[in-house]
Structures are given as structure tokens and as C-alpha cells.
């Protein structure tokens, strides 16, 4: 009797505490403010321009950020473990080239997509092996892979531009460039992947270990978490996301040069950081990766629509990166005091 009352008291106490922490956690979270900033930007643009809230513009905006956001999901997993992957742009390049070369040679879309995804996972596994099993720094390994991937893309394609994709070419263009219910296919893929990542981060042991490694790697080792295997796997997953993005991007562009994905690593890292990831590890979310990528694209789009010289884009995006991290730091120190 007394025991059940105590249990009851404990439970209600728990709920009160939860609602309290949920609200304060929400307001102090960077992701919340990035969402607010994105929504405010969208509302303001809808009123100040005639062109923002048109279905065509929204279609373009969502599709444009989908590529970056898909890769940012994989990058998020890497950054939560406390790592970094600078090679994502090159993995997009090399797997896009593999896709094109295989299909250009007359093989089916299954072969092309299969080879492209296999390539991306393999490159990711090589990154992961050197980082997790040989103990090398992620920055150095993936910096090397950034160079290797780009170079291999040129070797494989002989630096040609490929715009004929064999018998299944039309299917490829439809996958990347088409839409379902008025929403671009890459956006659908992003939605599905974001839901999967959100689920995996919260509900699976793999997700738990990703956060644990970023929080305290030594503690994870001591408690029996298979740290090396998990670390290796996040780079493979990041590679796979690059492969998926590459397939969609090639289909949308309809032509591939060896420059595909160049500089994407910076856009992707910017999206994850704006979306609340901490480069020290242990913090981040799937939603953050998506909203971070969205905010960057909305800023870019708004500058174009408002007629601001496109040279200013880098300044605005860069300023948002710094503001987001500064905000994170300020709210972090406040909660510690």
C-alpha cells in the first residue's frame, strides 16, 4: 500500500519534472531557434516577394537542399561520435562517376546504382578502418580521401563529361529529376531517410552507442561498447548517404562531370553545425541536419529573390554558422552556471 503510493508519487513527480525539462530544453536548444529563424525567414519572404511562396520556387528550394540534407544525415552520425568526414564531396563525385560510367557502358540501372552505392560504402569503410582500427585522426584520413576520391573520379571517367546513360537513362533521369504529388523525388528520399535516422538514433543500440562514443569514448570502451566497430560503421553510413545523394543528383542534372560534389563537404558540415551538432561530439539529431540544410538554402534563395548580389551569399551563410555556434556556446555556459 505504502509502497504503491510512493511509486505513484515518484511517477507524478517524474512527469512534472519531464514537462519542465522538456519546455526549458526546447527553448534552450539551438535546433528550436534555427527552426524559428527558418520560419521567420519564410514568412517575411512570402510577404516581401511575390516569387518565394510560389509552388515552383518552393519545389526548387526543397529539392536543392535535399541533396545536402541527405549527406548531412550521415555527417551528423559521424560528428556525434566526435569525428568528421571531409571526403563526402569526393565520395559523391566518385560514386556519381561510377554510376555514369557503368550505365554509359550499357548496363542496367540496377547495376549502375548498385555499383555506385557499393563504391560509396567501400570508400566510407576505408575511412572507418583507418580511423577506428588504426587510430588515425578523422580529419587527416578523410582529408586524404578527399583528394583520393576526386582523383579516382577523374581516372575512372578519363575526366569526360557523361550525359548519356545507356538504355536505362530515362529511368535515372526520372528518379532524380521527377516528382510525386508535386514534391521532388529527392525530397521524398530525404523524408524517408530522416525518419529512419531519427528512429535509429533514439531507438536502437547502434544509435545509443554513437552518442555514447561522442560523450566519453573511454567510458564506452570500459563498459564493453564495441567502439571500433561502431566508429567504422558511421563512416560507412556517411559514405552510403553520399552514394544515395550522388544517384539522385546525377539523375537531376542529367550530366556528370568529375567536379560533381566539389565543396559539398563544407555545405554539409555547415548544415550539421547550424542544426545543433557539436564538433566535440555527443550532441546532434537527424532533424537538426535537415533543418540546418533548410536554413542555408532559404537564406541563399532569399538573397537571390531580394536581388542581393550573389557574391554576398558566402558572407551570410558563414555568418549564420558563426552565430549558431556562438548561440550554442552562450546557452551552454548559462546552463552550467
Amino acid at each position: 500500500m505504502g509502497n504503491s503510493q510512493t511509486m505513484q508519487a515518484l511517477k507524478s513527480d517524474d512527469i512534472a519534472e519531464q514537462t519542465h525539462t522538456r519546455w526549458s530544453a526546447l527553448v534552450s536548444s539551438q535546433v528550436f531557434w534555427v527552426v524559428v529563424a527558418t520560419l521567420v525567414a519564410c514568412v517575411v519572404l512570402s510577404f516581401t516577394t511575390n516569387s518565394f511562396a510560389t509552388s515552383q520556387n518552393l519545389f526548387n528550394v526543397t529539392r536543392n537542399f535535399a541533396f545536402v540534407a541527405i549527406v548531412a544525415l550521415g555527417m551528423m552520425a559521424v560528428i556525434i561520435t566526435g569525428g568528421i568526414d571531409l571526403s563526402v564531396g569526393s565520395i559523391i563525385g566518385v560514386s556519381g562517376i561510377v554510376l555514369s560510367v557503368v550505365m554509359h557502358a550499357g548496363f542496367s540501372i540496377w547495376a549502375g546504382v548498385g555499383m555506385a552505392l557499393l563504391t560509396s560504402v567501400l570508400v566510407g569503410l576505408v575511412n572507418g578502418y583507418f580511423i577506428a582500427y588504426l587510430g588515425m585522426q578523422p580529419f587527416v584520413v578523410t582529408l586524404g580521401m578527399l583528394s583520393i576520391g576526386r582523383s579516382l573520379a577523374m581516372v575512372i571517367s578519363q575526366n569526360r563529361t557523361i550525359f548519356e546513360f545507356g538504355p536505362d537513362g530515362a529511368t535515372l533521369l526520372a528518379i532524380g529529376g521527377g516528382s510525386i504529388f508535386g514534391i521532388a523525388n529527392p525530397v521524398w528520399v530525404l523524408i524517408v531517410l530522416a525518419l529512419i535516422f531519427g528512429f535509429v538514433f533514439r531507438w536502437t543500440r547502434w544509435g545509443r552507442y554513437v552518442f555514447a562514443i561522442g560523450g566519453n569514448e573511454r567510458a564506452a570502451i570500459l563498459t564493453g561498447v564495441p567502439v571500433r566497430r561502431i566508429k567504422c560503421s558511421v563512416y560507412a553510413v556517411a559514405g552510403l548517404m553520399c552514394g544515395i545523394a550522388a544517384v539522385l543528383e546525377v539523375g537531376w542534372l542529367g550530366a556528370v562531370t568529375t567536379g560533381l560534389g566539389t565543396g559539398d563537404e563544407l555545405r554539409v558540415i555547415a548544415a550539421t553545425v547550424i542544426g545543433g551538432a557539436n564538433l566535440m561530439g555527443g550532441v546532434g539529431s537527424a532533424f537538426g541536419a535537415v533543418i540546418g540544410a533548410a536554413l542555408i538554402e532559404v537564406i541563399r534563395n532569399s538573397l537571390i529573390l531580394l536581388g542581393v548580389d550573389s557574391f554576398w551569399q558566402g558572407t551570410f551563410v558563414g555568418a549564420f554558422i558563426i552565430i549558431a555556434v556562438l548561440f550554442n556556446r552562450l546557452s551552454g555556459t548559462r546552463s552550467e552556471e
Partner: protein
Amino acid sequence: MAVLELKDVAKHFGAIRALDGVSLTLEPGEVLGLMGDNGAGKSTLVKIIAGNFPPSHGEMHVNGKAVHFHRPIDARESGIEVVYQDLALCDNLTAAANVYLGRELRKGVWPFRILDYNAMYERSRALFAELKSETRPRDLVRQMSGGQRQAVAIARTRLSNSHIVLMDEPTAAISVRQVAEVLQLIERLREQGIAVILISHRMPDVFEVADRVAVMRRGRKVADKKIADSSPEEVTALITGALEAA
């Protein structure tokens, strides 16, 4: 029957004898204070018991059975749990997540096995209640006091059916009030029949909570006696070598 028995255990690192012919027994519900200066062999002894590396020589028995540990997981499977000096906690996870780290409960059928949050919260809550700690399962470790963090690390040792808990300098870097909390947690373990080896530099803590004190010096055990039969002065003399043995 002794829960842990070491017979003539030695460890050599090349020409260095880190541990030389140490025998030790531990009864259920007994708290042993293990003392000694830096380099006296305490941590080597503890690492052997915790399975970090095997001894060069000697035998080890747990509950009367001979054991040979090669990895920490071997020791854990024999019912030996370790509370590390820095507690080995992830600040970014909740108390319950830390208690279950590496041993998460899951439900569902493969490949759709998901974390069983409710079961882990409930069991953690029960463990904290058992330890009479105010730690709440859903709180982030980052926001906890030193005493609560200790409770999380100690609750972790209660998950499995452990018989022996090794605590490495649990009171080295915390405030006076939190030291009292930790000593109470050790009391709780004793009440449940768990044998505790408390490695500590702090004389008052050992004399407050331990039943027995063992002193190491230069790889040898130079004393092993009931707390009631010893004194802080004697132990200090044993540690420094002013007294050869007792």
C-alpha cells in the same frame, strides 16, 4: 567460503616486479581498504582482479572456482564489477542510459529490436532506491552532483549478479559532503552481501567504512588486519616503510 581468493599472485613487467607473491582473501559483505603509496602495486593488483591483464604467476579463485581473466569482460562475467576513478560516465546521456551502457535492454524480434526505455528506467529507479540515492533515471549525468554520479556508477555494478565491487579512489576528487554519500553507498553494498575492495589514499575514509585494511609496499602485501586492530598511525608507518610489516 571466500568470495575471492588470491594465492601467491605475481606480475612482472620485464625485469620490474610490480607485484610479488600477494595472497588475499575476501569474504562476502566484507569491505577491504587497499592502501599504499603510488607505485606500491595497488593498481596492478586491481587490474589483475578486474581482468585488464593476467598475472605472471599465481592463482585466483572466485567463489572457490579457479578463474583466468584475459579481458575485463571475463571478470565481469565472473561477478566482478569495477567503479573507475573517473566513473566512466557519458555526460550527454541519462542516468539510466549510463547504468545500462553496453548492456542495453531491448525488446521486439530481430531485426526490429528496439531499446526498452521503460524497463531500463524502472530498473534504474529501483536500483537508485536500493542505494537510497536521489538520482533520477531520466536526468542527464551532466547536470548531476558528484554523489549522484557515484550512485550511477555504483548502480551499474548492481545490474548483474555481482559478488565483488572494485572501487578505484572513489573519494579522491569530490567534496566532503559527497564523500559521505559515497561511503553510505558502500554501506548499502555491504548490506547486500557484496564484497568491496576500496582503493584509497584517504585514511579517514578507509577507517570509517572498511572492515579490514591491506597495505601494499613495493609490490608486496606488508599488512592485512582488522580495522579494529590497527590505527591510522600504524597504517601510515606501513605505507611509508617506517614499519616493515604488521
